[in-house]
């Protein structure tokens, strides 16, 4: 199984994986075939994310990019406690209340196609 497939398989089990280089300790998202810090390809493994992070930035999307989308919704870059950034959505709050640097925690979005994706909700 490719690292990408492993990541999506874990997401279906509601586990958020962060690819981790077992040689140098670097963590990266999205998963890929090489460590972008040390360049090694052979010792890539995983850390399971604690599920906390902060909003690096966000935008409320007001126009649908396609028929499957129903704006407004919040697209965000979330910085995981483990370090890497992730593109995601902030859910569970009115779009107008999201702020940069706001603490958020992991939740899951089960999509009609059967895939499950990480999303984030405001930390209480």
């Amino acid at each position, binding site marked *: 199984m490719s690292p990408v497939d492993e990541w999506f398989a874990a997401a279906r089990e509601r586990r958020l994986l962060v690819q981790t280089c077992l040689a140098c300790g670097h963590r990266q998202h*999205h998963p890929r075939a090489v460590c972008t810090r040390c360049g090694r390809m052979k010792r890539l493994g995983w850390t399971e994310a604690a599920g906390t992070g902060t909003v690096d930035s*966000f*935008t*409320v999307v007001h126009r649908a*990019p396609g028929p499957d989308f129903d704006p407004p919704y919040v697209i965000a870059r979330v910085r995981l406690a483990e370090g890497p950034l992730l*593109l*995601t959505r902030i859910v569970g709050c009115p779009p107008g209340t999201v702020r940069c640097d706001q603490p958020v925690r992991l939740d899951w979005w089960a999509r009609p196609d059967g895939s499950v994706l990480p999303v984030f909700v405001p930390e209480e």
Partner: protein
Amino acid sequence: MTVAVVGAAESDLGVTGLSALTLQTQAVTRALADAGLRLSDVDGLATSGLARFSTAQLAAELGLRPAWTDSTFAGGAGFEMYVARAVQAIEAGQCSTVVISFGSDQRSAGSRSLAGVVEPWTPEARFEAPYGPLAPISYYAMAAQRYLHCYGAEARVGMAEVAVAAREWALLNPAAYRFGTGPLTAADVTGAPMVSSPLTTADCCLVTDGGGAVVLTSLDRARDLPRPPVVVLGYGEATSQTTMARDDDLLRPGTVDSGRRAFARAGLAPSDVDVVELYDSFTVTVLLSLEALGFCGPGEAAAFVADGRTRPGGSFPLDTAGGGLSYCHPGMYGVLLLVEAVRQLRGECGGRQVAGAEVALAHATGGILSTHATVVLGVDR
């Protein structure tokens, strides 16, 4: 450097009903006429976005068999990159006369999508597109949101001023899409329909047809041609990412490196530049670029533009054709930055001419702050 721009032209702009090939043919032949050269003089060709084999497609259309081509695809920044490659190719003797061109019928063809172009095999297709970002708008929107968070909500006024100033310039340019439409106010910008917050429709560049071309040859030869040569003084570029979660700091784009490299090669500093042509894909792009190129410090761009210095008659003439925001935006705008910079240095700009302009900078950004390329041009001294 020993290479000069000797010709520059636009194709028809706006809503043309013409094909991309026809627009590009117009741009090339008009730029050659401007240079006092003919198609048969061209032995180098650079373009992208036309087809899979962009330069072969265009060469065949024009009846050329070039000895050198470049179709590096870097979005709107590719054209500034081509200037660097063309200088190198001419200096190396691989070719003598290069045409850099672009043309798009995206407005007439209705080919622009809010979702952008996401190739299905890419990581962004699997890890990002399912969330529904607009591409590229939502990425620039996140940069703008972070900008306002770090530098204060009053920076929104500076973002709006970028669009207001662009309109003022467009009102002086009969070729501009918004020519004759009247001025814009900051309230018009912030009050326009929201697309991807904080960016409204008025923070986003136009969607038009259009194209342009520039012709380069050796400075020695340029001095025998009809127009005053515009010398390539320096160039630099940087390439960063295609995914929305890669770059660590949204407020420090690759422009920092591109600009530093171009100024170093030119042996010049930001204070030496008389007229600045920046790719204003979005209002925030201009603020980020002004800071990254060193025209002001980090977080200072909103205050820098707020006094109106970038408007016509101001001390810092910026995007003097009216920019992608109010003049023309055919999808990849970089070549038109070069066309306007050349015309300003030749003193051909009529009511929008910057008096005594001797050094111009053109900086283009492609994709989602993915590619960055800077060219410094100057009069022949």
